[in-house]
């Protein structure tokens, strides 16, 4: 029974950290219509920044500054925000696909730096000994898990309330206006690019914070944690929950993480150890197909906004083959 509660707390903590990433993505995509396929990169930036700031001094690499965990979180948000703002500034004056390609590139480069810049990131072996909140409780796993859950839940709640407030504020209304009808919003004197860069930066900061939370929760990070599969998982969470809705982002994350963890347990029971890797790839196939099916039959997810119009910087062009295969 105690074990079950402990596992439940562990599961929920991970799911809520995912929720935080999804909330960041919802601000970028759901509210503003900015397409980020490199979010794993921003999560990684947050995790590594916070780890560098808070770990004890390490002769093998730069720093280990031994600062308090809260400073690490703050640092993660600042660096993540700046990285996102730079990405946005480079691409948001161009076609929306260029942002997608650039964010994809950001994730690739962050992955490269994490793997190869040993002096900074510890290379493939990652960074260990990241201080954990309530680390003194580690002897009592149940209490430790529950207190960590409380911390993560509190941070997620604060982010949720702040985002709910933001999306109803004049700022959020401008973002929605830009998403729905860019030309009308611009004619009211709103600078489309400036608002979008802001939204993208805040979203990036939230993702980085989530990365930091995760790093301090597990106490160890490595480049493998931030592969494209992470980006993919978070997208599925947002689409299932319904983009545009913060509540949907949180519930979608918990739901999809439940399915993911559940099917993972199932494959580990059903398949022999040497077949595990193959079974895991089948799991990804299933989730990928699920994403495509949801996009086809219920693009608004569980709690989604009403149908959006596509964001286009230039006057909308009708995509070729619009009439589909039947024409």
């Amino acid at each position: 029974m105690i074990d079950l509660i402990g596992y439940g707390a562990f599961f929920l903590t991970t799911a809520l950290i995912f929720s935080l990433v999804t909330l960041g993505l919802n601000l970028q995509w759901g509210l503003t219509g900015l397409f980020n396929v490199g979010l794993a990169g921003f999560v990684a930036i947050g995790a590594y920044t916070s780890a560098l700031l808070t770990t004890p001094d390490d002769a093998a690499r730069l720093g280990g500054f031994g600062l308090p965990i809260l400073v690490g979180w703050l640092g993660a948000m600042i660096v993540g925000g700046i990285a996102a703002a730079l990405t946005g500034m480079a691409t948001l004056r161009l076609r929306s696909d260029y942002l997608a390609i650039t964010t994809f590139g950001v994730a690739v480069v962050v992955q490269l730096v994490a793997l190869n810049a040993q002096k900074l990131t510890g290379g493939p072996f990652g960074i260990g000994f990241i201080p954990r909140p309530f680390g003194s409780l580690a002897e009592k796993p149940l209490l430790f898990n529950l207190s960590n859950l409380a911390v993560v839940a509190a941070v997620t709640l604060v982010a949720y309330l702040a985002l709910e407030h933001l999306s109803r504020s004049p700022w959020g209304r401008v973002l929605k206006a830009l998403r729905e009808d860019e030309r009308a919003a611009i004619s009211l004197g709103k600078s489309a690019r400036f608002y979008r860069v802001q939204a993208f930066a805040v979203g990036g900061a939230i993702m980085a914070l989530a990365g930091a939370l995760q790093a301090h929760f597990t106490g160890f990070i490595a480049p493998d944690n931030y592969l494209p599969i992470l980006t993919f998982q978070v997208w599925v969470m947002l689409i299932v929950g319904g983009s545009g809705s913060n509540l949907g982002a949180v519930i979608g994350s918990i739901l999809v993480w439940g399915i993911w963890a559940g099917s993972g347990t199932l494959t580990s029971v059903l398949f022999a150890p040497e077949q595990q890797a193959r079974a895991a790839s089948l799991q990804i196939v299933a989730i990928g197909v699920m994403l495509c099916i949801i996009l086809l039959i219920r693009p608004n997810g569980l709690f989604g906004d009403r149908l959006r119009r596509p964001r286009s910087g230039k006057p909308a062009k009708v995509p070729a083959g619009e009439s589909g295969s039947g024409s």
Partner: protein
Amino acid sequence: MSLQFVIDGLLTGSMIGLGAIGVTLTYSILRFSNFAHGDFMAWGTYATLAVVSAIGATFGKVAPIAPLSFGWPLLVALVVGMAFTALLALLLDRVLFSRLRSQGQAIIVVMASFGASMALRSLLEFTFTSRPTYFSRAIQIAMPVGFGIRITPDQIALLLLTAVLVLGVHLLMTRTQTGRAMQALSQNAALARIVGIDVASVVRVTWIIGGALACVAGVMIGILVQIRPFMGFDMLLPMFAAAILGGIGSIPGAVLGGLIIGLAEAGAVQLIGAEWRAAVSFIILMAVLFVRPIGLFGVRER
């Protein structure tokens, strides 16, 4: 610095360029960046490998053509693989992309291609495992050609094949009715429709060309490097960078962009080290976006 990087760069550049043709065509005609294009490459390569093994099982061991490492089975298999990849692209368009396109949400199509890419790649990993394989394990002796450059017969053959294919596609685009229809559609879709261009057939041709060339690029990687489920996904960033560097919609641009990126990568490998190779395309991409976002041969959107 040895001049060998020129050959390495041209070869990598050919692979990137052949892939980038598909990316640039999909982007300019169907107006979305297809994240599944790299996985067309990988699927084409595995299909070719499967046909090679099937031929090997039926006809026994076939001697390779004199100086090359492969014989006629690979050539036959390549043609079958190209057809297979084109069919795969058409199928994916039929069940997924065309339906989403008809809802008029361009960026949703990009996301769907991202999901499809993940599913396709993992399916390969499931079927063939992530262990790398090879078309041939034979070692070729590289011939010195002066200036400290060495080249293998395979490499010469593949460079020639690339040149022939690029020339072929270029002629198709500029000299045939289909090619002109494709250009018209990419320049002004509404007007193209008004003059009675058959949009559905242009879309089909786009997927066929893109898929077939992706397969050739993948097989080149398979012959010169190795075959892995991730081989195409790793080419995605260089291909996008090449397409944007060359100017979206331009076939010579995509090939030239691919060659530039290939040479830059090979140069970086010599100067900085192989582990930073993948960053080269990102740096070039950012430079293009800041300095000249329409690329070398691009036209401003009208």
